């Protein structure tokens, strides 16, 4: 276990940024999101939840897959270069790290998505334990411990110190590179912090949320429930919940004509959008109820059925905070809980 004064963190950022890209929570125009560190960046480790999850470091909201050019009637396809440089993501919370584990199940399963895999190979995750969990947090429901995240390096903020504990080879390599910035630390301080965090988490309003009835079996039992018809009504069919979610992975592939060729890019898409399943001969989900149901059934039933019971929700609570209609996965889970 190592530690560094929080006042010295800018030196740490600068050191990392000398040799690789560093992504961390940056405050800009009043909101905090993960962004590339620059000298004048306003790093914000106090905000518990960035608006967007850090998933877009690995799975960007929009990325070019390849471009096509036509010359003398001949088409050529130029694939976009894959990420080939190491980078660091600093300050991911336990739920965000689990979010990446969920995305891994999608993008690293056969056939592997090489764009995503290249970023995963080159990215080092420095996780940060949650100092002040929020009302909307319910990660423990999914077995996540916000006091001890997964990650290549795990860190804790205690008073004026950042405690640093490398866990993997990537984490050790990064620690070696920064070793002169640290001083040795005592594990017991961190243990005390962990205990304190776990005590707060127990008191969270959603701490006792029950997932009973969800999981693989819900695919059969809950699809036809009349509850959906009640639940979806306030849904505006916007994509807020999808785009702030650390596990939503649906994407669209589209063309952009740059005037000197066509760039084919993929961008996040939302199953909440009316045209998500629209094709030339019709749409198989014509009502918002069906689209709403698809989102939650996918997270709570279909995904676990295909992935050994792992839910495609990590309880980060972003949708709880951000839904314009105050509709969210907690209300969905609870609505079914009441009926059983």
């Amino acid at each position: 276990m190592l530690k560094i004064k929080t006042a010295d963190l800018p030196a740490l950022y600068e050191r990392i940024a000398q040799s690789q890209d560093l992504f961390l929570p940056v405050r800009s125009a009043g909101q905090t999101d993960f962004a590339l560190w620059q000298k004048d960046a306003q790093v914000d480790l106090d905000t518990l939840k960035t608006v967007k999850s850090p998933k877009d470091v690995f799975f960007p909201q929009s990325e070019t897959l390849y471009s096509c050019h036509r010359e003398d009637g001949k088409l050529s396809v130029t694939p976009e270069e894959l990420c080939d440089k190491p980078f660091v993501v600093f300050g991911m919370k336990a739920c965000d790290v689990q979010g990446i584990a969920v995305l891994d199940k999608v993008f690293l399963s056969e056939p592997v998505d090489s764009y995503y895999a290249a970023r995963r190979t080159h990215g080092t995750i420095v996780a940060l334990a949650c100092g002040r969990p929020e009302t909307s947090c319910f990660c423990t429901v999914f077995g996540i411990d916000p006091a001890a995240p997964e990650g290549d390096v795990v860190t804790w903020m205690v008073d004026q110190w950042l405690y640093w504990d490398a866990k993997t080879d990537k984490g050790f390599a990064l620690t070696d590179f920064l070793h002169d910035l640290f001083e040795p630390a005592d594990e017991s301080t961190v243990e005390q912090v962990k205990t304190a965090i776990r005590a707060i988490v127990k008191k969270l309003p959603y701490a006792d949320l029950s997932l009973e009835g969800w999981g693989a079996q819900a695919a059969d039992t809950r699809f036809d429930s009349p509850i959906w018809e009640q639940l979806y009504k306030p849904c505006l069919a916007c994509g807020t919940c999808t785009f702030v979610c650390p596990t939503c992975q649906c994407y669209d592939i589209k063309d952009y004509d740059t005037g000197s060729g066509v760039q084919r890019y993929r961008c996040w898409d939302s199953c909440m959008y009316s045209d998500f399943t629209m094709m030339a001969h019709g749409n198989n989900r014509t009502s918002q109820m069906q689209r709403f149901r698809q989102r939650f059934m996918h997270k709570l039933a279909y995904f676990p059925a295909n992935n050994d019971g792992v839910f495609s929700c990590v309880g980060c609570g972003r949708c709880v905070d951000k839904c314009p209609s105050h509709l969210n996965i907690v209300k969905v889970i609870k609505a079914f809980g009441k009926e059983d």
Partner: protein
Amino acid sequence: MQELITRAKALLESGEVQRVLGWKQGEHIYDPEPAFFDSAEALKDFVYNGFCGANLSKYMIEAAKLEGKTLVFLKPCDSYSFVQLMKEHRVDREKAHIIGVGCKGKLSVNKIDADGILDIQGAGYPDCADTLTVDTLYGQTTVSYKDAMLERCHVCKGKEHMVCDEQIGESADTADSDRFAQVAAIEAMSPEEKFAFFQSELSKCIRCNACRNVCPACSCRKCVFDSTKFDSTQKANTTSFEEKMFHIIRAFHVAGRCTDCGECSRVCPQGIPLHLFNRKFIKDINSLYGEYQAGVDAQAKAPLTSFTQEDAEPSIVAEGGLTHA
């Protein structure tokens, strides 16, 4: 609040209305959701408090397609949207029973600077406190009601309902700042400053379309941004021009129809002050074509569907005739 429930029950039981459109108790005081209630029994979850900011007018477009009458609760500013939708023939006045509900300013939990908010006292209606007491996981704190109010309430359009069948509850005019002050402040900036301001605000946009979908004026069956005929990339979030195009066109398409209800800014997950675009159009319309408030009069001619022969030429912009008017 009890008065609202009693009246709603009576109307449901008499068969005069088939359903009630109101707000439903959430998990906390600060997350009520818009909801339809089909029975007197369901109304046990009905809630009306300082956090019921959602404008229910847009839901009336769907309600107009249902059998029978819908009872809807509209706050004074929501009623402007309803009148505008009547003007555009998107809602059916005959199928709506409107209760004009009082409003003393609506709150945003995002404006309360505290972690782990569990409960808030003083946010009820009609009894609201000047100071809200906020219980959090990390202790108690207070915030003044005014400081927690939505932006739109600081430029309140007044206590009058533009349309309603009956009125329940008192309203308060909560305006305490000039509606166009923010717009004027930006107009006074240099082009470089203006551009930098909007670049930093709009680069946060995640193109979730919440601003569009919540907007009572955005009621097109098929939005131009959903058309496959455009390659204007409905969902790509790039920090280049695309966001600006989206937001300018979004605001332009509602120019002259926007009642300035402020829902776009309320719902933006990134806290982008989207109302600035709409309000800039309103300010220009007022100064060029005469004062106009959408949603006041369903018969009035809208500024972008009318003209006079003496209208200003577009060159007025380059000549600086608008910003210094």
